[in-house]
C-alpha cells in the first residue's frame, strides 16, 4: 500500500518537472520573440515580425513570393529597419540565448564534476586565460609579435587560445604528483593559473598607453553581446546543441558523481575518466562562449544554484531547466544592457552581477537554501 503511494508521489513530481521543462522551453522561445522587438530604435511590433517571419522562412512557391502578404518586399529584405531587426537585434538575442545556455549548462556539469556547488564554468582558469588572450590581442596586437596566419587572427581567436592554454596548464598542475585529480587540487590549480594570467594581463594593460584600447579591454572583460552576427553565431550554436545532447546522456553518471569519489566508484562510475572528459568538454564549451562575448560572470555559477534550489539535484531535470533558464536570463539582461541608458550600452557582466547578487542574498535570507532540497 505504501509502495503505491510512493509511486504516485514520485510520478507526480517528475511529471511536474517535465512540464516545467516544456514551460521553460516555451519561455525561451517567447523571450526571443519579445526581446527582438525591444531596442534603442522604436520599431512597430508588426514591422519587426514581418521582417523576422520573412527572413526566417523565405517562403517562395514558384514565382509567387509570400512576402507580398507581409507587405512591401523592399521593407522586409533591405534598408535600415531590415538591418536593425534582422542583422543586429536577432543575432544578439540568439547569442544571448546560446551563451546563457552554454554557461548555465557548463556550470551544472562543472559543479557535479568537482562535487562542489561553488564551482563555475571558469574554474579551470578559462576566464583568466581568455582575458589574457584578449588583452594581448587588443593592446599589443597579434601582428606585432607573429607573422603569417597567426597575425591575421582576431580577438576571439586569442581569447580562445588563452582559454585553452590555461585549461591545459590547470589540468597539468592538478596532475602533478600523480594520483587522482581531486576537486581540491583543481580549485587550487585554477587559483594559481588565474593569478598568473591576471598578473600578465595587468602588466600588459599597465604598459599599454592607448586609452582607446584600454577602454576596449575593459569593455571586453565585462562582456557584451554587441559583436553578435549571424556568421559568429554558428559555432556557439552548434556547440550548445551538441553539448546539451551529450550531457543529457550523462545525467545518471553526473548524479552519481555528486555522492563523492568513493560512492561514485562503488556505484560503478569510472571517476577519473569521466571527470577528465567533463572538465575538458565544459572548458571547451565555456571557451567558445567567452571568446565571442567576453567574460559574462555570474550566469554559470548562480543559475545552476538558483534552479537547484527549486528543482533539486537530479540532473535529469536540473540540466535542461538550468540551461533554459540561463538562456532566458541572458536574453533579458542583454535587453536591459541595450535600453537602460539611452543611446548607450552597459556591459552585460555588470547587469548579470547586479541582478544576480540580490537574488542570491534573498535566497540565503529565506533559508530555503540547501543545495537543492525540498525541506524548507
Amino acid at each position, binding site marked *: 500500500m*505504501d*509502495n503505491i503511494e*510512493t*509511486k504516485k*508521489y*514520485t510520478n507526480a513530481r517528475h511529471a511536474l518537472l517535465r512540464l516545467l521543462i516544456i514551460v521553460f522551453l516555451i519561455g525561451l522561445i517567447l523571450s526571443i520573440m519579445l526581446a527582438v522587438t525591444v531596442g534603442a530604435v522604436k520599431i512597430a511590433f508588426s514591422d519587426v515580425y514581418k521582417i523576422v517571419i520573412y527572413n526566417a522562412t523565405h517562403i517562395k512557391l514558384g514565382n509567387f513570393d509570400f512576402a507580398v502578404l507581409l507587405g512591401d518586399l523592399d521593407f522586409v529584405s533591405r534598408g535600415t529597419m531590415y538591418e536593425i531587426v534582422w542583422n543586429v537585434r536577432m543575432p544578439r538575442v540568439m547569442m544571448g540565448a546560446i551563451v546563457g545556455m552554454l554557461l548555465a549548462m557548463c556550470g551544472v556539469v562543472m559543479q557535479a564534476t568537482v*562535487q*562542489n*556547488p561553488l564551482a563555475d564554468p571558469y574554474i579551470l582558469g578559462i576566464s583568466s586565460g581568455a582575458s589574457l588572450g584578449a588583452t594581448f590581442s587588443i593592446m599589443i596586437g597579434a601582428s606585432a609579435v607573429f607573422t603569417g596566419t597567426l597575425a591575421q587572427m582576431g580577438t576571439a581567436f586569442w581569447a580562445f587560445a588563452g582559454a585553452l592554454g590555461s585549461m591545459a596548464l590547470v589540468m597539468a598542475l592538478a596532475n602533478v604528483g600523480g594520483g587522482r585529480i581531486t576537486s581540491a587540487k583543481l580549485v587550487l590549480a585554477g587559483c594559481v593559473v588565474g593569478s598568473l594570467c591576471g598578473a600578465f594581463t595587468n602588466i600588459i594593460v599597465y604598459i599599454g598607453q592607448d586609452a582607446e584600447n584600454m577602454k576596449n579591454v575593459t569593455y571586453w572583460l565585462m562582456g557584451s553581446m554587441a559583436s553578435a552576427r549571424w556568421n559568429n553565431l554558428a559555432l556557439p550554436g552548434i556547440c550548445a546543441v551538441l553539448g546539451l545532447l551529450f550531457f*543529457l*546522456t*550523462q*545525467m*545518471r*553518471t553526473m*548524479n*552519481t558523481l*555528486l*555522492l*563523492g*569519489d*568513493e*560512492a561514485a*566508484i*562503488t*556505484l*560503478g*562510475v*569510472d571517476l577519473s575518466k569521466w571527470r577528465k572528459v567533463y572538465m575538458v568538454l565544459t572548458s571547451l564549451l565555456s571557451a567558445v562562449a567567452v571568446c565571442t562575448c567576453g567574460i559574462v560572470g555570474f550566469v554559470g555559477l548562480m543559475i545552476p544554484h538558483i534552479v*537547484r534550489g527549486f528543482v*533539486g*539535484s*537530479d540532473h535529469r531535470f536540473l540540466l535542461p531547466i538550468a540551461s533554459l533558464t540561463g538562456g532566458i536570463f541572458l536574453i533579458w539582461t542583454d535587453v536591459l544592457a541595450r535600453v537602460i541608458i539611452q543611446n548607450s550600452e552597459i556591459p552585460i557582466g555588470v547587469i548579470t552581477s547586479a541582478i544576480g547578487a540580490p537574488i542570491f542574498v534573498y535566497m540565503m535570507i529565506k533559508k530555503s537554501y*540547501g*543545495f*537543492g*532540497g*525540498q*525541506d524548507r
Partner: protein
Amino acid sequence: MKLETKDVVVNLSKKDIVKKVSVQVKDKQFVGLIGPNGSGKTTLLKSIYRVLKPAAGEILIDDIDIKGVSVKETAKRMGVVSQFNNIAFDFTVEEMVLMGRSPHKKAFSQDTEEDYRIAHEALAKVDMLDFKERNYTTLSGGEKQRILLARTLAQQVEMLVLDEPTNHLDIKYQIQIMDIVKSLGIGVLAALHDLNLTLMYCDYVYVLKDGKIVANGPTEEVITRDLIKSVYEVDCSVERNERTGKLYVTFYSNLSLEGKR
C-alpha cells in the same frame, strides 16, 4: 562468488600501510576483519573496492584479477557500505537508494517500475520506507547509514564489503544492520570494531596489526584472551553466553579492577 586478495601491498604517501595481506572470502561466507586503529583495515578494504590502487599483489573475484575489469562490472557484483560521508548536494532518500540501481543501467535509461520496486523493498528492509520523501542531509547519522545500506541492497550484489557499518548506530540498529546483512546469505567482508558483534556474526576472522595478518581462522578459535591482550593491549575475559551459545568478551581496565584489590 569468491573474493580473494593475494599478497596485497598498499602504500599511502610512500609508507606501506598494508603489507602483503592475503585474505579470502568464500561464497556466502561472513568474514570479519578486526584489528586496532591504524592497523590498515580501511586501507585494505579501499583497495578491494577500488578507491586505492594496490602497489603490489592481486585482488581476485572468482579468480579473475579485477585490474582488467571495469568498475561498472565490479559494482554489479560487489557492494560497499562504508562510513557515510557528508555530501554537498541534496537528494531525497528515494533518489539516493535508486542510485544503487545505476551499475545495472545504461547511462541514458530511465528508472523502471522494477527499479522503484527494488528500491522500496530495500528501504522497507532497513525500516526506512516512511522516510523516502525526506532529504538525505536532514537525516541523523544512524538513519543515513541505514539509507546507504539500502542503496547497497538495491545494487543486488553477491558480495558485500563493509567498513565499520555500525559505527554511528545505537545498539538496536547495530543489531538490525548486522541481522539484515547476515540474512542476505551472501559473501561479506566486514571491518569491525566491536569484538562481540564479530563473535555473534562472523564465520571466519582475520586479525590485522601494523598492516599484517597476525591471526586468522574460525572466529571462536581466533578471538581469545591472549590474542586480545597481544593485539589490543587490553585485559579481558572471554566467556560463553548460555542463552546464545556464543562467546562474548568483557574488557577490564586497571581502573575498573582497582576497587577489587
